[in-house]
């Protein structure tokens, strides 16, 4: 199945939205305008974009601590995301979650997660409920090489395989887990090597190339939808920023970080392709750039102008029945 020109363009725009949103986030963080921990996925935009382009709206995802891209690619509103990063009332989580915990149940985003290895069993459960309730949706879960060391990832893969559930495990390999390299966490060159241990299909794609990701995703999704059970899809990508904002990456080899944009920019790869194939002109790309810049500016404005959450709203949403906290 080929990729429609509009989709190629649209994926470019999605990646650009993630990039510009996160660049703005980085700037706001540096200026001291954002509290808490912020993990950015700049350089990795092709992965969530290509994956989510293969999904239906009803399909669900679980995102990671580095989840802005996953969530935007699944269709999230930038303004409500920015408001959440700022801890505002209008944020997706009313300011209670912050960057590490954004969810949008309506969009099938079951949540970013601050605990490595926790999203994978949850994703298996989403696939299980689909089968039980007779719903067509499939379930996608993102995780990195660091998380791959967690027991939860193993248990989830095993469970999905034993029960033949429609789960796509997306291993987003960006070379690092916090401040340490891949080889500190994994003893094999590729996570694809894990698939045979569960008897599931697996593939590895170039995570800098959104169309390669989409191709891999379509195949995986196809298998899932046809009831063949879970699939492991590895996407090799690059983390440009530090583990969290404020991390100066002094542990990385000299010059490595500086060279990344030259070597591995999913945006340049896709814009070159679009121009080369005549799918878009420079002018059209500029227009997208302006549109996205405007969207980001509006998102920031929306966040800034949004009301602060009322302090006592901290008491809400502990239980669904009472609206207020339970015991003292």
């Amino acid at each position, binding site marked *: 199945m080929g990729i429609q020109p509009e989709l190629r363009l649209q994926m470019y725009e999605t990646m650009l939205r993630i990039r510009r949103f996160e660049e703005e986030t980085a700037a706001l963080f540096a200026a001291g305008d954002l509290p808490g921990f912020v993990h950015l996925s700049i350089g990795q935009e092709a992965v969530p974009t290509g994956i989510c382009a293969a999904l239906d709206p009803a399909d669900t995802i679980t995102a990671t601590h580095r989840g802005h891209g996953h969530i935007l690619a699944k269709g999230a509103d930038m303004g409500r995301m920015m408001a959440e990063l700022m801890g505002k009332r209008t944020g997706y*989580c009313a300011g209670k979650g912050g960057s590490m915990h954004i969810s949008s149940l309506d969009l099938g985003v079951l949540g970013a997660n601050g605990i490595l290895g*926790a999203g994978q069993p949850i994703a298996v459960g989403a*696939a299980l409920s689909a089968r039980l309730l007779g719903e067509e949706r499939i379930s996608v879960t993102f995780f990195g090489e660091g998380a791959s060391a967690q027991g939860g990832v193993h*248990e*989830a893969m095993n*469970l999905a395989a034993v029960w033949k559930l429609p789960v796509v495990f997306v291993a987003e390999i960006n070379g690092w887990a916090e401040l340490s390299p891949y080889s500190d966490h994994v003893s094999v060159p590729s996570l694809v090597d894990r698939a045979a241990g569960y008897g599931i299909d697996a593939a590895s794609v170039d995570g800098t190339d959104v169309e390669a990701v989409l191709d891999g995703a379509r195949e995986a999704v196809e298998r899932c939808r046809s009831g063949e059970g879970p699939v492991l899809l590895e996407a090799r990508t690059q983390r440009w920023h530090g583990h969290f904002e404020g991390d100066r990456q002094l542990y990385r080899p000299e010059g490595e970080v500086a060279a990344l944009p030259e070597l591995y920019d999913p945006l340049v790869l896709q814009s070159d392709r679009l121009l080369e194939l005549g799918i878009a002109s420079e002018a059209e790309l500029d227009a997208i750039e302006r549109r996205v810049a405007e969207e980001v500016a509006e998102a920031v404005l929306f966040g800034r102008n949004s009301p602060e959450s009322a302090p006592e709203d901290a008491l809400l949403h502990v239980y669904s*029945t009472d609206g207020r906290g339970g015991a003292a």
Partner: protein
Amino acid sequence: MKYYAAIREALRCELERDPRVFFMGEDVGKPGGIYAQSRGLQEEFGVERVRDTPAGELGFMGAAVGAALTGARPVVEISFADFIPVCLDQLVNQAAKIRYMSGGQARVPLTVVTFGGAGRNAGPQHSGSYEALLGSIPGLRVVMPSTPYDVQGFLKAAIRDDDPTIVILNKALLGLADDSEAGVEPIPFGEAAVRREGEDVTIVAWSAMVHTALEAADRLAAEDGVSAEVIDLRSIQPLDGETIGASARKTGRVVTVQETVSFAGIGAEVAAEVSRRAFGWLDAPVQIVGPPFTPVPFSKLMEEFVLPDAGSIVRAVREIL
């Protein structure tokens, strides 16, 4: 009905009532559960809704959380409460917090059924209950039924409720019978039961220790002419401070009894409630009866030595009379 059969009865009723409900755990499906607590249910409701899991609690507890988030109403069994530590993250960081972290978008209608309790020579790794840990997690509810009637009522309430609830059953009570029949209505969380009215001292207990407390109350009546009120907490989170406080104000003396070590436990929380609600009425400090600060030993003699019995309660009461 017997305690173990009440589990099955509640499950059957809820599986019948709501097609979104399903039950899973180790050996609960085809084999019908190691205590026969789900015998026949898979035949009746099929393998999708009564499901045998692999022996990986973290995985299937997480799957239960995910299923609950997406429209199903899972009931998941952890065969011994001692295995909760291997899947605790899915309870405390996920199930308990997801609704809150989502700003109220999400609901996690999850029921966990687990078997706790000591006194069966099951040794240090198969005799725990973890009610204080689980009860102290905002977002979770915890109940500990002491009778077959309560098993049915609380299990139904948990399954119909939209929040994660842990039902901690007691291995030592599995064969206990009462005159309850099928059809018990759901019991609201947070209501303790006064199992015996009394004037001189309040004994607060939960789970298996309720029966020990009633035995102690009989002895106190017979041997000391003391009239003890026995409160069965039933619901650990939320805790019924009102009933505890009212009884403490009436009797002026409170003894709590538990089979798990008491450090920062439910007994201490009950004492805190008593202090908040009945300080001026108290004639003596609250006595917290529990085992010494050790794991649960295997040998019969040693296990009996550490676990409170009616005698320990009687002694504690006598100390403050």
